[in-house]
């Protein structure tokens, strides 16, 4: 065997190594596509009277992050990484987001702020069955600031979540002495408004979703059936469904805000 065949084998080995040992860069461990439109979940808060504990707001943010990441339509940015300097002054992000969020809610037309200090926004009329889809513009006096913020922060969409109402019904009924049916259980119902804001044009897409989950035990005379689930698990199940719904709904509405 000649020397040349060794060299060719060696060359072949090197080329094989080139394909086998893929370069792993520290920045690119995860499949994240930077070319997609940038979106940040700016605020998850309750502007209503019945609020959940703060833990559930954090959890809802994570559930949404997971679902939006899985949909592969957005590149998610953490709001903590946004440090915008607008005309030399640093913006107080929490206040700014709160202002935007309230404006988006109030322009929706169904609500009004009753007390600015306590952040309670009451219904002006009763809610219809989650079918109020609207597109409107943010208030003109915030618009220039919002445009500058959009340019400085490199964000194309801002998402605001208002977990406005939570109802937990405890069911416990004794039907009658004749039939002796007994029913006990828990029903969790959560009402969420969400607003997608395009900082470039100032357009807002607002929609809402209501869903519930029930766990109960029915005790008739001969049959006793059902299940008992902890309220924490029930709330998580409802929130997960809603996060799924919101992620799906937002995907189709990107084009309409331009």
């Amino acid at each position, binding site marked *: 065997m000649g020397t040349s065949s060794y060299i060719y084998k060696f060359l072949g080995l090197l080329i094989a190594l080139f394909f086998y040992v*893929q370069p792993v860069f520290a920045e690119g461990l995860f499949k994240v596509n930077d070319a997609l439109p940038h979106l940040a979940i700016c605020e998850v808060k309750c502007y209503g009277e019945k609020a959940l504990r703060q833990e559930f707001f954090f959890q809802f943010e*994570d559930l949404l*992050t997971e679902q939006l990441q899985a949909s592969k339509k957005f590149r998610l940015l953490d709001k*903590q990484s946004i440090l915008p300097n607008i005309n030399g002054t640093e913006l107080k992000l929490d206040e700014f987001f709160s202002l935007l969020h309230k404006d988006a809610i109030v322009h929706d037309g169904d609500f009004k702020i009753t007390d600015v200090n306590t952040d309670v926004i009451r219904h002006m009329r009763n809610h219809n069955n989650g079918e109020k889809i609207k597109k409107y513009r943010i208030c003109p006096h915030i618009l220039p600031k919002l445009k500058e913020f959009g340019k400085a922060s490199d964000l194309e969409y801002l998402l605001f979540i208002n977990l406005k109402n939570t109802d937990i019904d405890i069911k416990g009924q004794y039907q009658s002495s004749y039939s002796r049916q007994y029913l006990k259980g828990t029903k969790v119902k959560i009402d969420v408004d969400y607003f997608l804001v395009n900082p470039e044009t100032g357009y807002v897409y607002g929609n809402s979703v209501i869903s519930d989950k029930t766990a109960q035990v029915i005790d008739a005379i*001969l049959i*006793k059936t059902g*299940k008992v689930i902890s309220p924490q698990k029930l709330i998580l199940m409802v929130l997960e469904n809603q996060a799924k719904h919101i992620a799906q709904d937002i995907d189709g509405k990107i084009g309409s805000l331009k």
Partner: protein
Amino acid sequence: MNAKSFIKKLIGVLLLQFLLLPYTAFAEKRPTMVLAGVGSRLVVTNIRNVEQKAYDLVNEALLDGPLVGDYRFDFYDGSNDVRMNLVDGVFNRTSTEAVNKYLHIFDKHKYDYYLYCYITNVSRKDSQLDILYPKKGELHGKAKTIEVDITLQVYTNPNYRKLLAFTGKGNSSNKVSKVRYGDNTIEIGDLAVSETNLADAVVDAVDNACEKMLKSMRD
């Protein structure tokens, strides 16, 4: 084969090695990931004194789970580091201003990714189906299930941002079924849920979340 062509080929090989050099250099440096801590978002549960036990089990399951030994990154335990405990203040954030106080912690550590785990639910689910047939017999089916939910958050180091979140669900159940007809009775199973069930459910949840995380990585 003469010496001239041999030298040519040698030069070719050297050139190729030179071209490959940056890739081989990067291939050796694998990104690092550290388990910064385990937190809780448990508000209400129907199992008594479960929280501390769940912490320990989740911590153990993560450090002994599918993340260890993956060829794409190196996984470290950060729970013994005193400063890492401070990081809890960052992850449990309420406002953007509060976070800035803790940002220097990330500069001191040179990890590429920070993993933080939250226990979001540990609870028991009871389900049952009882059918009675008076004077003849009865049929019972009962199950007690321990359900565990966790959430993994991945943070990147250079500008401290949350990159991704993954949720995992796990459960472990004990079932019992009982049939009686006249005086004859058959009973199969054991209804009491134990710590083993909790550990099984935790491992199930951690595996579920880690599997999602590993799937979202580049090959």
